[in-house]
Structures are given as C-alpha cells and as structure tokens.
C-alpha cells in the first residue's frame, strides 16, 4: 500500500500540484536564495522574480519562469559564491515550476473562445471526402497536404492545427481535384492490363518467339531474389491513364529457406514516391497465391517497381538476368539458370534465399463502386438552375455537417450564378466550414456541445470521419445527446468497420509511433534493420491494440500480457519461431520470450532510441508521458552528450556512463525519477532485440553485462523489465487514469486541465467496474459530462 501511494505521488498529474500556493510552495525559496539579486534592489539581468506573474497561463512571464528552471538546472543559479540550497530543495522548486508551467500551458490551450475551431487532420479530411463523395483523395501524395503538427504524438489537437496561406491554397487545389474526380468532364478511360513474367523480365522479353517455339511460354516465371528490383509493372504500358482507384491482382510464389523468414514483396510507385503495397509472401513454388489490393493513382504515367525486400546479397553479382538459352520456369529445372549465376537452391532443392517467383500482375481501373457513385449522384450537377441551388444547400449541409442557413449559402449561390454549379461545390469544400470542426456559437456562451456538434465529435472520435445519416437524423431530432440513444449509437459505431480507423489512429498517436524510424539505425551497427522491420514494429503495436479493442480486453494488457501479435519478420527479429502465415497472428508467449504488453515491443523500444544506441533517459521520459501522463521538466541547455567509449578504457554500459554523467546533484534529482523507468528496459537494444550484454563498439575487454535493475524513489526495487511491469500492474488505476486522459485528448482534440480532473477521475472510476475493458472505457468517456463539455 505504501508502495502504491509513493508511486502515485511520484506521478501525480501536473495540475494537481498547481493548486499549491506560490507563496507557500516556492516563495520562501526565492526569498532566501534569489530575490536579493533579482528583487527590488538589484534587478540583476533586468530580472525581478518578485514581480513575475504567478499566473502561469500568461505567456511572456511563463517564458521567464522556464528560464529560471533551466538556469537552476544547469547549476548556474544561485551563483557559486552565494549560499547554496540543498539539491532536494532546488529540485522541489524546479518541479513545482515545471508542473505549473505545464498546467498553465494546458490551460491556455484549452482556453476556448465562444466558438472553438478544430482543423481536420489530413487523415480525417480524406476520410470525410470519401464519405461525402465517394472520391479517394490521397492527402500524402507529393504536393498534397503537409504532415499535421503533433502535440505529444496527437495530430488532432485544435490549438496546434493552425492555418497558413499555403494551407488555403492546398485546400482550394484539393477541392477542385475532388469535384473534378467526382464529376469529370468526360468519363475516365478504363484500362485492364495483364503483365506476364516475361513482360517484366528485360532479359527474356527479346526471346519470346524462341520460348514460344520451345512450348514453354506459359511456364515462364520470373525469380526475384533478395534486393532484386524489376521495373515495368506499370498499369498501362508507357501510356498515361486517368486518376482514380485501381484494383490490382498479383500472382506469385514466395519460397523460404528452412527456418528463415519469408521473402517480402514491395511495390513502389515512383510517382507517389511511396510503397503502394507490401506483404510477406509464403506460398510454395507450385502453389502460388493471388494477392489483391486497391491503390490510388494520380493521372499520368505511373511506373511501379517490384522488389524482394529480404536479406541477401547486396550486389547483383552473377545473379543478374537469364542469359542465353536459360529461361526461368522452376527452381528445379537446370535450364532455368545459368551455371555461373548465384546458386539459389541447395542440392536437395531447398531455397538458399527467400525468393519471390512472379507470374503476373493485373491492373483494372479507375474503378467506381456503386455505393460511391450513389454518394456522388446525390449532388451531381443538375440540368436546371433552381434544383442546382437546392442541391447546393444540401451539399453544404452534408459537407459542413450541420444545418446551413440561406444567408450562409448566398455567396455560394452567387458563385453558381457567376460561374457554374461545380465551382460552387469547390467553394463549399474550400470553405473553413468544411475543413474545420466548429463548436459553439458566436453570440452565446454555450457550455456544452449541441447535437450536431456531438454527432461530429462522436464520429471523428470513433470513425475519424463525418457523421453518417443516422447520426445526422438523431442530431436533427435533438435526441442524440440522450444517454440511452448515445449508448446505442456507441454500440453501433463500435461495431462498424469504420471504427478500425480509431483502432489504428489512436494508438499511433498515443504511443507516438510516428517516431519509429525517426533516427534510422546505423546500417553498420544494425545491418539487419530494414524498412519492413520498421513497419512490422509499428504494425505489431497497432495490431496488438486492435486485438484488445476487437475483443474488448482490459487495458491491463497494454502493461503486460502473455501474448502478442507477430508476423514472420518480427518473429525472426525477436528470435521466436516464425509463424506459418504471412500475416500477423496472435502468438502466446512463454516467459523466456521476454515480451508481453506494449512496453517490450520493438516499436516502443526503438522509438526512444537514436540511430546508434538505446537511450534509457528517453525511454523513461516516454514511459512517464505515455503511461503516467506526466511530462518531466526539460533538460537544462548545454548539457554535454554522453561520449562514445574511449578505445583505451574498459568497455562501459550506457548505464554506467549515465551514472557518471549525472553525478551533478542538480541533474540527479530529475534523473532519479526518470532513469529507472528507462533502465528497466536495458535488456533491449536500440532496435528492441533482447540481450544480456551490452555491445560496446570501442574499449578494452569484454562487452559488459546488462544491469536492468533499479528502484523507484519510494524504494520499490525491481531487477528487470518483467518485474517492473508487475509493479506497473499493481498500480493499474494510475495507468487507467492517464489512459482516460489520453483518450480524452484524442476525442476532444485538446489538452486536459485541472478543470477536467474530477470528470476524468469519475470516468476512470466507472470504467474500473468493468475491469477497464477498452470499449467500456471508451463508452464511459462518451457518455460522460466531459464529452458533452464544449
């Protein structure tokens, strides 16, 4: 019990401390150590601490308070020749100020005018466009939208999503493109192409007649060894084609050496400058699979390259092409490969490398599904002007997700009259009413959201898109906010496939997964690291969250579990048996696997590392923020980095170097709280692999053994990550409280303040009754007062 209490105190949310009075908490300290120089008499550095505002919601003085922390943290203040406070005293003051600044900042962020505007994230924009018009818009295409700014990983915090002139230009351009694609001047030219193995194999294309004479044209396949790329998979030969969604089918085999990970198919679009499809392929040579997917292509010529992203020889060596009479049909045919080419199978016919064996690829599109066409038909350009105006209003209401007055549509009617109907639609989509979610009324100070605002809040929370017709009609009836109705709607919405957006988007933002790969690991230190591993790491965490979500499991699973979601690439990375299927599957973990829960997933362990080594302090900060909702104060400036191990000194772990690094008492205070949270995971290297000794590139002697033990400030000791996770679980309410706050950040698109504290705690308490099962936690949030609060 004592342990729990101490633990709770350690991670008490920031704003809880802000309630302490400045006069009693820190003023005596300043009076004793600071005000003699920074007071009425001296004003050294033009700074008077006694005159700084105690209101931490005010911008300019908060900056100065921040400066005070950094000077104290760096040991500059008080100066050496002045009486020194104890380290604990100084630390307490710095903590108080840091928490107050944080609380003040959050209060400022949450400070809302009568009307609050929250710009749609680019993902939400694209989802909304699709639901409105059945048009797939690619916000990440080159020249489309820029990435959304983040606040602690969240991409939809209203105060962060500012608008610049370049945004307006991009919104206008996007609106034109969307309307043109919904109702093009002439019907798009549909193409259907089939490209055979021989078509993409440059060496064999010239030999088609000879191969046909041999009678083996239909047997010809193209082998793609690791690192091998073939171009010319483009949908329409060298010709351009119309933009839209294309259906793709690809037939191929993927063979794997015994005990190794499978080949990895990657299709890269040069024009989109990204991978449009990738998958591990596990299919015997004589039992190829047909993979199907859809992709968006802009208009013009789109080149697509196929690559086998798997470990293997870096150079093409003698492996290139099929020279002379050698034409690939099967691995077992001696005439498939020239004798001097790289050996691909052993003498028993087992592949030596993960190989893709390509048969064909088919392209079909642009495709328009009937339900998409139906969406467009609702607002299709009508022949008569009068109807056009009524359709215009209907379109504005749908696009702006609320009733629209005639007065509001007047300017758009004018555009229709001056130009045409489609230009009017473009203007509606380019309006702030479309790309902003607005809550409140200019002339009324309304404390809660209305039904339409609630409908949008609900649908953007759970679906990441605009409300559907059911939500609109409940909003129109004015019944949506009724608890029973709301609960029914939550059940409906959580069962809808659109809720997959939440299961993907929320964990991505909450766990700050966009940081994975931010510092690409050094190729020499981590030669096994590749893009697919990086993506698999992220997918493990997302699939893990989705599994908890789909099965409504307790959020305890985020802290620890005896299972995870693995694909072959990640299983190989973890040194676990490789699954038989290419996709992710739920795998039960033995204790020796040293995994379970989110915290020991490679994504989390690597996003907190840099390109060369693990960073225990960063791991500690991440854990503090993400699991406890507590942001530690920033480090003082000009802190020396930890230097690499000298070549003439015994090899030392990062932990050992860190201990020497933070010998300064002023640093030790913060580090004592943060570091144990990260050091607990020292058994995992910078890319999340388990280890028992730390590899130190330079220095004398053997690599030192890992020490993942530690103790919390309350004295609770742990010896490794497993024990640490057990300690976390023993204080599950604290995590649940922080998790609820993160959910609220995401749902309400704003930071929480001390004003929200009581409601957050109430939601947490109610959710506990259902063992903190994820969907129940979400439901409790939605039916809470907090969710209704504007």
């Amino acid at each position, binding site marked *: 019990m004592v342990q729990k209490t101490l633990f709770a105190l350690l991670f008490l949310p920031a704003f809880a401390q802000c309630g302490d009075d400045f006069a009693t908490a820190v003023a005596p300290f300043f009076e004793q150590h600071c005000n003699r120089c920074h007071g009425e008499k001296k004003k050294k550095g033009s700074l008077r601490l006694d005159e700084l505002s105690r209101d931490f919601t005010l911008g300019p003085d908060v900056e100065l308070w921040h400066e005070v922390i950094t000077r104290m943290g760096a040991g500059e203040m008080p100066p050496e020749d002045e009486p020194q406070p104890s380290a604990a005293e100084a630390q307490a003051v710095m903590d108080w100020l840091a928490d107050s600044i944080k609380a003040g900042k959050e209060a400022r962020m949450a400070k809302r005018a009568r009307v609050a505007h929250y710009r749609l994230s680019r993902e939400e924009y694209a989802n909304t466009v699709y639901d409105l018009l059945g048009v797939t818009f690619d916000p990440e295409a080159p020249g489309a939208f820029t990435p959304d700014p983040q606040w602690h990983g969240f991409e939809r915090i209203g105060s962060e999503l500012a608008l610049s002139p370049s945004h307006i230009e991009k919104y206008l351009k996007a609106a034109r493109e969307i309307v043109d694609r919904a109702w093009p001047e002439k019907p798009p030219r549909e193409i259907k192409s089939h490209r055979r193995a021989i078509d993409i194999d440059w060496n064999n294309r010239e030999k088609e007649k000879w191969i046909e004479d041999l009678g083996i044209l239909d047997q010809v396949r193209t082998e793609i060894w690791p690192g091998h790329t073939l171009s010319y998979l483009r949908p329409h030969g060298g010709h351009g084609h119309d933009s839209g969604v294309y259906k793709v089918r690809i037939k191929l085999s993927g063979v794997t050496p015994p005990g190794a990970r499978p080949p990895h198919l990657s299709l890269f679009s040069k024009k989109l400058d990204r991978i449009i499809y990738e998958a591990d392929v596990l299919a015997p040579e004589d039992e190829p699979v047909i993979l199907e997917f859809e992709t968006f292509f802009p208009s013009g010529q789109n080149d697509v390259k196929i690559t086998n992203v798997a470990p293997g020889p870096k150079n093409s060596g003698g492996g290139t092409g099929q020279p002379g*009479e050698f034409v690939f049909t099967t691995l077992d045919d001696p005439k498939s490969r020239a*004798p001097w080419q790289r050996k691909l199978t052993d003498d028993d016919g087992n592949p030596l490398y993960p190989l893709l064996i390509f048969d064909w690829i088919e392209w079909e599109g642009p495709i328009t599904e009937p339900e998409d066409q139906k969406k467009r038909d609702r607002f299709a350009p009508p022949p008569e002007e009068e109807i056009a105006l009524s359709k215009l209003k209907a379109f504005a209401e749908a696009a702006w997700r609320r009733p629209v007055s005639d007065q509001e549509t007047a300017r758009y009617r004018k555009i229709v009259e001056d130009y045409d109907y489609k230009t009017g639609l473009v203007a509606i989509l380019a309006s702030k009413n479309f790309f902003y979610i607005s809550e409140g009324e200019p002339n009324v100070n309304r404390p809660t959201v209305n039904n339409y605002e609630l409908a949008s809040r609900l649908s953007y929370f759970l679906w990441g898109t605009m409300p559907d017709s059911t939500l609109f009609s409940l909003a129109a009836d004015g019944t949506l906010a009724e608890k029973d109705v709301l609960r029914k709607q939550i059940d409906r919405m959580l069962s809808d496939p659109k809720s997959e957006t939440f299961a993907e988007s929320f964990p991505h933002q909450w766990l700050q997964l966009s940081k994975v790969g931010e510092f690409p690991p050094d190729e020499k230190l981590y030669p096994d690291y590749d893009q697919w591993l990086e993506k698999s790491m992220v997918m493990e965490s997302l699939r893990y969250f989705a599994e908890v979500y789909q099965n409504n499991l307790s959020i305890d699973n985020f802290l620890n579990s005896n299972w995870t979601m693995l694909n072959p690439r990640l299983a190989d990375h973890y040194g676990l048996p490789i699954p038989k299927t290419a996709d992710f599957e739920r795998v039960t973990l033995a204790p020796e696997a040293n995994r379970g829960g989110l915290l020991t997933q490679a994504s989390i362990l690597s996003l907190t590392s840099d390109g060369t080594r693990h960073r225990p302090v960063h791991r500690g900060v991440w854990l503090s923020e993400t699991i406890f909702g507590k942001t530690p104060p920033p480090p003082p400036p000009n802190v020396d980095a930890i230097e690499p191990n000298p070549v003439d000194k015994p090899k030392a772990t990062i932990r050992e170097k860190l201990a020497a690094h933070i010998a300064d008492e002023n640093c030790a205070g913060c580090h004592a709280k943060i570091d144990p949270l990260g050091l607990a995971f020292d058994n995992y290297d910078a890319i999340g692999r388990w280890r028992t000794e730390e590899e130190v590139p330079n220095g004398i002697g053997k690599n030192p053994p890992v020490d993942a033990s530690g103790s919390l400030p309350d004295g609770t000791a742990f010896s490794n990550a497993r024990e640490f996770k057990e300690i976390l679980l023993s204080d599950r309410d604290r995590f649940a409280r922080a998790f609820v706050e993160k959910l609220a950040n995401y749902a309400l698109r704003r930071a929480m303040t001390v004003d929200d504290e009581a409601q957050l705690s109430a939601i947490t308490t109610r959710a506990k009754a259902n063992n903190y099962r994820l969907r129940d936690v979400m439901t409790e949030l939605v039916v809470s007062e907090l969710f209704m609060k504007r």
Partner: protein
Amino acid sequence: MLIPMRIISILLYLIPALTLAGDPRIALDSEFPAPGKAKMISGEITLIEHVNRRGILRPDRDGTINKYYWDLPHSFEMLPYGSIYYHGAPAELKDIPIGTHLHGQFHLGPEGPFEVTPPVSNYAAGKMARPDLRSVESQYSRAMLLEDDFSFYTRNGITWEIKNITEDRGEIVVEKSGDDESMTLRIDRGTRVWKDKSIASRDDLAVGQKIVMNLGWGTLLGSYKQDALCREIWIDEASRLAATDVQRGIHIEHQKRRGVPALVIKTEHDPGKGAKGWLTAQLYEGIDPELLEELKNAKSVLTQCVEPSLRMYNVNTSGSGRVESVTEIENPPPGCSGIELRIHFYEMQEGHRKGRTIRIAERSWFRPVLPREELLRPNDLRAFSVEPKYITGRDLPNSPQ
C-alpha cells in the same frame, strides 16, 4: 503436385539405366563408373571435334566384326572424366593427328545397349555410302580412355623388337616383347624415326632394336597386323622420354589456362548464409604432379562451371574459393585421380552442384584469353553437330545467346 523439373530431367537421364537395372556398363556424366566394365575398341581416328571432345573412329578389322560391317564410323564423345594419352602423357584430342591409331575403352551411353542393325547387304558396307550407317558397336559411345600405340604399349610395358627389314626399307617385321606375336609394318618416306632427341632416318633402323611405334591408317586390307602404316618410330629410350616430356608440357600448359577438371561430390551450405558454403570435388584422372603441388599450396582457387565436354562458358564466369583441404582417397574409381579438394566459397554458383563438372585453377593460372571457339558464351561458334548427341527437353538448335 508437380514433379520438380530437375528430378524429371534426372529421371529422363537415368531411365535407360533404371530400366537396365543399373547396367554397370553405362557411364553417366554425374558419377564415376564401376571398374572393369568398359569395352576395348581400337581403330584409327578419322574425325576430331576437339572443342566438344567428340570424334569418330574407324574400328580395326581385328576379326571381331563381320566383314560386311567393316569400317563403319564409330562416333564417340569423351566422358567428362575420360582421359586421353598421347606420346605417353595426358593430351587433348587436338594433340592427336587425324589418322592416328588409338586404343580406347568405351562405356554405353545413357540409351544403354540399343541394337544396331545395319541393312542386310551383299555388298561391303563401305560401298553403300549410306549416311546413317554406323558401327555395330555404336552403343559404346562414351569414351573413358583413348591412347595412341605409344601410350598404350608404354603403359603396358610392351616394346616391339625389329626382326626383319626389307631391302628397300619399305617394311619391317616386329615382334612383341614377351610374346611371339608379330606384325608387318609398312614404312615410307613420311615415317618419322626418332633417335635420341632428334629425327633420324629409315637407315637408322636395325634388326634387334626394341622400338615403340605409332601406327597410322592400317585397316584397308585384312588386318592392321598385315598392313599397318607406321608413322612414327622411337628407337631408343631417350627419344621416347623426350616425346613424353614434350607432350606433358603441352598438356600442363593446356590445363593451366583452363583449370583441372573435377567432379563435384557434394555441397554443404551454412543455414541462413545463402549460397555460402563448401564444395567437395574429386580431380579427374591424369592430374600432373606439378599442377597438383601448386593446387595444394594454393590459398585460393578460381573455378569454372563447365559442360560435360569440359567446355567453358566464358573466361569471366569464374567463382572464387579457398582450399580448405586436399586429401587422397583409397581405391579411387575409374576416371578419378583419388585427389579430393574441399573448397569454401562465399558464394557458390548454380553449377556448383553434386554431379557437375568444374574446372579448378590456382588463381594465377587462368588467362583472360582462350581460343574463341572453346567458349560457349556469348555464342557457340561450333554450331555443327558431331554425333552422338543426346537431346533433352529444352535443347533446340539455334538457341538465343
């Protein structure tokens, strides 16, 4: 369930052997044959396609063949491990003049002992000029060994003693050592008589000399024993040693440029290391001690995957490996030198497979240039075909190169 093509091709290759319950007379490219199963056939070499190690013999009228089937061509191809000796030293077909009388050991080809039935005729086969006529021993088309008289008799420790010389020095009668078998040999102005290390003349021949000779054409009458034309005669030990030494030098240079051939016995791979691994190969019979010594001391070797004809694809297609061990095996089978090498490769090639032939060279041996017609890449300049030829599924004439 598809049957892998490699298995099919191996089965096709093995079908005759399988149906013959593993007839030991059949020799395959992929393994050394059983000892003592080859058939002796001797005759005059009438056509040589040295690049593909093929040729045609006109078998001797030695009394084993019905006279109506005399002189029919006996097409053969050298087995990859088949050896050729000339002047008592290893040789290539190109070293042997057309018209030289050779002793050979032959195995059945993959078709096994098929029946050869020349058309019934009252006429001598030679007069019919039918292109499809072939020797009744054509089944034995896989040459394990070819050697000239010099090599054959020297290997067997046989010399011939001159018993009589005609007055015009047009014929000599010789008698086999340790035997009373005698032959009458014709000699003429073209007969080279070797004495010491230089050419002598017919006048240097004398009754009582113990000679070694190479015969030329000699079967146009009843038997070569009655009518053999003798092209070369070595009348003393010094001349014989000189001839052998020159031929040995020729062959050493030939093999250095191309590498010594060997049969891949097995390959082993490091799991997870791709094509990296070890190759074990046994050198073919006839490796010169000088070359073997260099190979034993080689830190690294270059290998070329070659056709069963020992023909190379290209000089630029070599693989590189490190010799880990050189060992001698006891009682090596025919065609095998008994020398086994274990070589480590960072990357093996497709041709590094059990049953394939490779050439192995100490790194400094290979030269960047070889006679163009010897190479299969970028195209085969020897488009014409000399029998026998075994057509397999994918082989079509005029393959793209």
